[in-house]
């Protein structure tokens, strides 16, 4: 039991450690952290920029009305470590977006994950590629 508790503690610390850079510019103040939506839609624009990259896509709501969503991830530097790129999306791509919306009900939020047309999932959580891997080669002595 003690080991299990310690394990949970380590996981929690790990999640916190890797989540900090993803909200480097702003924290949770605008977002409804109790809610998660999964929407199927069509990409209208992908903006690869600072302080945040963001994806715009059209998706129908419960009343069959199409709304244009704007959902963010972190900046290009951080996202490229997680396999995202300037070329990850193009207008017209059919995607499934899992997101955390803002509190006021506007079609705005932040991405948890996106399933691409080819079935690949791009995520925002978890350790970035390379975390825990052997350290980068060091500079040779000169």
């Amino acid at each position, binding site marked *: 039991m003690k080991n299990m508790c310690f394990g949970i503690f380590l996981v929690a610390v790990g999640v916190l*450690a890797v989540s900090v850079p993803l909200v480097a510019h702003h924290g949770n103040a605008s977002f409804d952290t109790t809610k998660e939506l999964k929407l199927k839609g069509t990409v209208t624009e992908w903006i690869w920029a600072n302080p945040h990259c963001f994806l715009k896509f059209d998706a129908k709501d419960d009343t069959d009305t199409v709304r244009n969503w704007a959902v963010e991830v972190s900046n290009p530097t951080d996202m490229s470590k997680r396999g995202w790129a300037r070329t990850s999306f193009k207008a017209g791509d059919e995607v499934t977006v899992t997101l955390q919306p803002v509190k006021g009900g506007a079609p705005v939020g932040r991405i948890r994950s996106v399933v691409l047309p080819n079935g690949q999932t791009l995520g925002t959580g978890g350790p970035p590629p390379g975390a825990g*891997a052997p350290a980068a080669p060091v500079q040779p002595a000169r």
Partner: protein
Amino acid sequence: MPKRLIVAIVAVLTLAPAIRGQNLPWNNSGLAQSSNQPQSAPAGPAPRRDLSGIWDAGGGGIGARGATPAPLTPWGEALGKTHKSGDGARMAPIAEINDPLSTMGDPEGFPRNLLFELRPFQIVQTPNQILMLYMFEKRWRVVWTDGRELPKDPDPRWYGYSVGKWEDDSTFVVQSNGTDERTWLDNAGNPHSTEMRVEERYHRVNQNTLELTVTIDDPKAYTKPWVARNKLAMRLMPHDTDLMEMIPSASEALEYKKAFAK
């Protein structure tokens, strides 16, 4: 040795760097952010009085939630109340954030560039300067090592004025003043005055590791000096690393705010 073999060896030696060079990657974004990874092999000793190289603190350099400062003076408290930050103790909803860096594309300024968004940076040594070339904002600082003193009553600058000297063979100490009051100290909107003095201590622990300690001394804004970075460990990156651009432009900030300040 046959002539043909000699020609082949010379050709390989001549062409090898070029062949390797063709495969070198561009746009390196730095070390993984989850931790400052352990060394893969024992590092050699620190070279004498040498900080040159590309250094990266990984996620430790980002400082999203801001520092924990000393208590503010009434002047500092009043200025801090005007700062609506993206994170930390003054965190505000996106529409209300007035961070000059992320909403207007103002320079990050010094020492915020050490306390928030300390992405990889390169140190270059010349006979009379140490140059610090930062990936974030693609800006640089000059630390004079020619024995000059800090200016008295300087015109404020976004990145202040800096002089440095070697305390011993592995510790370089930088003193700075003359910073611009419009900049924030960190991502939590901690304030500072133009009277602030900043000390940076760069301690080269070994070949691959550099530690940074930053002390803020600003009697107008804080009741006592405080340590904002305490032995932040930075790793030496390969010397042929090509760093990404990471520039917070005003037009991109505006586009973001239009989409998200709802």
